[in-house]
């Protein structure tokens, strides 16, 4: 109706919304939908939450294995001696 996205289309646009990649007019239409739709508002909130969770995961979940850390430092020292 009036070119407004339905719920399924809103969910498909949600990643771009949280990444700030929508055009002004896309964002406007999406916001109009959110104004009247609790379910999509909840979904968008969950999408934001998921994005942050994944970002935190990727940036800090994994610790460097000690063996690799040692190898890297050895290489670093060697590279430096060459100069």
């Amino acid at each position: 109706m009036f070119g407004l996205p339905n719920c399924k289309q809103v969910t498909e646009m949600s990643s771009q919304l949280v990444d700030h990649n929508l055009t002004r007019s896309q964002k406007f239409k999406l916001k109009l939908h959110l104004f009247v739709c609790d379910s999509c508002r909840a979904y968008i909130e969950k999408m934001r939450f998921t994005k942050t969770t994944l970002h935190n995961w990727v940036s800090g979940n994994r610790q460097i294995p000690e063996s690799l850390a040692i190898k890297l430092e050895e290489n670093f020292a060697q590279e430096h001696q060459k100069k």
Partner: protein
Amino acid sequence: MSDPMDKFFSDQQKIIEQLLAGDNQAFKQVTRAWYSPMYYVASSIVGEAIADEVIQEAWTSVMRALPKFEGRSSLKSWVMRIVANEAKTRWRKESRSVSLEQIEESWSTDPRFDGSGHWVSRQSSFHQDSPEALMTAEALQDCIRKHISMLPSNQRQALMLKETESYSLDEICNILEVSSSNVRVLIHRARDKILQMIEHFEKEGSC
């Protein structure tokens, strides 16, 4: 969303000088702080088994190229670009010219929506108030790990690259050799699956 190490690395020029001077402590700090995103990028492209080797090669390249680093991007973005390139080169050598772009899975029927694209059942928010609180549950961490590994590889690659927040969409397209509309779809589908996994976990208390 700030990296805990962002403050430490705010004085980028100083770090670069320390690295060029052979400061072992500075090197230790950057390699540790950036290991996680480097690992997820490398492993999503070449697989877990050789991800660490790729990271090692990437740091060698970084140290050799550092004197020529022009500072047009942040040091971290530059390092992240080098690890993605190393991974891609390695991936090309190892695999027999299969494109990174794979056949699309079908997405037309999503049981969450009715025929006119409306939610079948009412959606509610997550119970946890913050992603940080959520991540204290170890079982959930295992579940996320499992679900990330179950994603189709092109979705996993796009998601991992995106969530490092080190690459622009254009860069992700170049690395993965997919169009920008496809990369958006891949990122969204991957996130949507993890979102549904968290929903399920909250409801059932198990993975």
